[in-house]
């Protein structure tokens, strides 16, 4: 299939044509030509399979990549499957996702990596499974990292099951050096946060809910940075939510440690106040914090202390959300609504170009994946979008198997129009 994109504004710091409005011709999955005006009839050699795409205010960027998504399969197929998760990613404009290993059975051996890669190889979205750091994700004994890395596993994490044992984390970091694997951890000292259901602050006090204190995150950020300094490996801290963490990571980066970090997108504009009256749709981990945290997190995006914005797409079926607040599971689905929310709330503060770095360029950098710039001769891995489109998010926009989102009915700004990946063009 050959595709001609007419008058597309290219947003890609690694492209020669960054910020220019160009025609882009894609032939057999590769970017064949970029020029002010390409006549598709002249280019076309197999007219039947050619597509000319015209859209007012069309923007394109390297395909977006979500660093933290949960697709449920295997183990939680009632929430999401690999297929439905990929459909959600396409709808949201993502050409790649890294799956968090919150599965049964655990993603703790080579055959699980092979299984997920096999099952998703024909899908238009690049699916990279992260492996668990520890066997059965229980935090006691590290997994066969070399074998899994050879199978294509780029990162290891126990995700929200934060790795508590210092000695095991130390061994994991040291062991990861030999296969150049990335260790990811969500910093959350469970001994301090275990009964908490929301941020510890004025709202938790008003509602009588057990809070998760700032220090639960801060102490494990400190621990991880200390261990990183000892082991000198590669570390990524996931879902940073507090101003204290940002400051600690900033210092670690200044010291030259190989550390990166991300923030979940909802932690960039929602606060504890949104929980209002026990609304479980806003129950997430890390919990929604305070305005002051949001301000510091936004600054951290600008000064590159935080490298990546992730969706933390976490599908949860109704029976685990329509329950008492204490009993509700943490999480929001995030892929379909990500761009509309980010353009509305974050772009006014950091600009479109930086946003594209946080959701496309940097996630691949963190994982040491090949960069995919929009230049002639490169493989076409592209997201098409309109950053100014105003629209309302409805249940029809959700391709995920679960509907756990507080954003149905929200007025969005900015929309993903489609993706091009693996020679396939998907238009929303």
């Amino acid at each position, binding site marked *: 299939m050959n595709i001609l994109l007419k008058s597309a504004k290219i947003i890609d710091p690694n492209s020669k044509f960054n910020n220019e409005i160009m025609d882009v011709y894609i032939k057999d999955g590769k970017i064949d030509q970029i020029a002010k005006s390409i006549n598709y009839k002249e280019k076309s050699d197999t007219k039947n399979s050619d597509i000319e795409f015209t859209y007012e205010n069309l923007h394109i960027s390297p395909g977006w990549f979500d660093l933290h998504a949960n697709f449920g399969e295997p183990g939680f197929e009632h929430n999401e499957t690999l297929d439905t998760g990929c459909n959600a990613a396409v709808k949201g404009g993502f050409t790649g996702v890294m799956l968090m290993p919150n599965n049964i059975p655990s993603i703790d051996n080579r055959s699980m990596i092979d299984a997920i890669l096999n099952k998703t190889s024909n899908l238009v979205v690049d699916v990279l499974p992260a492996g668990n750091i520890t*066997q059965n994700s229980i935090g*006691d*004994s*590290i*997994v*066969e*990292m*070399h*074998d899994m890395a050879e199978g294509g596993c780029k990162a290891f994490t126990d995700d929200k099951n934060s790795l508590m044992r210092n*000695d*095991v984390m130390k*061994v994991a970091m*040291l*062991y990861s*050096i*030999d296969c150049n694997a990335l260790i990811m951890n969500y910093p959350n000292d469970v001994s301090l946060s275990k009964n908490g259901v929301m941020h510890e602050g004025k709202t938790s006090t008003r509602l009588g809910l057990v809070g998760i204190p700032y220090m639960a995150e801060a102490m494990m950020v400190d621990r991880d940075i200390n261990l990183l300094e*000892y*082991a000198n490996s590669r570390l990524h801290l996931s879902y940073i939510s507090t101003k204290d963490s940002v400051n600690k990571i900033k210092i670690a980066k200044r010291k030259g440690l190989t550390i990166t970090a991300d923030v979940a997108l909802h932690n960039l504009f929602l606060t504890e106040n949104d929980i209002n009256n026990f609304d479980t749709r806003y129950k997430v981990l890390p919990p929604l914090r305070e305005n002051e945290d949001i301000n510091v997190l936004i600054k951290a995006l600008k000064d590159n202390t935080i490298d990546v914005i992730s969706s933390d797409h976490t599908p949860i079926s109704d029976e685990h959300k329509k329950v008492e607040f204490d009993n509700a599971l943490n999480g929001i689905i995030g892929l379909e609504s990500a761009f509309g929310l980010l353009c509305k709330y974050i772009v006014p503060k950091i600009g479109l170009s930086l946003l594209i770095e946080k959701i496309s360029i940097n996630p691949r950098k963190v994982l040491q994946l090949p960069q995919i710039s929009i230049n002639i001769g490169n493989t076409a891995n592209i997201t098409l979008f309109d950053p100014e489109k105003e629209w309302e998010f409805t249940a029809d926009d959700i391709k995920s198997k679960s509907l756990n989102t507080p954003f149905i009915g929200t007025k969005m700004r900015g929309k993903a129009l489609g993706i091009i990946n693996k020679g396939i063009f998907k238009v929303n």
Partner: protein
Amino acid sequence: MSILSVNHLLGIKYLKPSDIDLIFKTADNFKKILNQPIKKVPSLRDISIANLFFEDSTRTKLSFELAEKRLSAEIINLSSTSSSVKKGETLLDTVNNILAMKVDIIVLRHPNPGASVFLSRNVDAKIVNAGDGTHEHPTQALLDAYSIREKFGNVNGRKVVIIGDILHSRVALSNIYCLQKLGAEVRVCGPSSLMPKHLNSLNVEHFSNLDEALEWCDIANILRIQLERQNLNYFPSLREYSMRYGINKKILDKLTNDIVIMHPGPINRGVELSSDVADSKHSIILNQVENGVAIRMAVLYLLALKKSN
């Protein structure tokens, strides 16, 4: 006749290269005797030796016993399972009680690093360290270096890689000291999680890749690997260890040079070493065991000699 510069054998790091030379030359003589029909000499006829093994041991214990018997020493044995240590007696009390029975030399195997150094400062007997925790195992290193010398004519200039758990290995530490004193170049190989943090303070480089290590070396000394230590796994599984660091014939056949394979025993066959290598012409593992007796005879003889001076 030359004598040792030390009164005890506590570790290789306390020896001078000339001490090691002397031990080797003495061992040469004993090795000749061991190959004669009458293997026993009366050298230590008046000497009493206590073998105190506070940690399990098979070959080291047997090797020492045989060495002592062939020197005609009087020996007594104590192991932790049958000792008064179980009843709460301190190490010092146990040893002083034994010394009250007029014992000249103590051979000590103990789980705590520095146990033999501690004893040497506090009791009036010669101490031979037969392995103290993760500190040193000097007679093993001596017999390893002696076996290299036997195979190649000398140790100087040889490239030796020690493969396995360097972090917890007294054999590795003693070997590093011994081989370096004799002019060999020593490097180590294994997962980064099994390397001491300050490895470079020993002037030892680390290979994380086995093929590179084997291509570099003349001799590979392979350590026994153990999955769990103090409730912590330092690597994920014996399977992955074997895949990354296990040596088999196929790997050796790929190398441009012939290398010599050593192992202090006991071998986990199929884990760190496959049978087709352990039992091959590359292996000098049984020579190591044979040399162990001659080396231990030499050490005990030289220490006893020192006493009578």
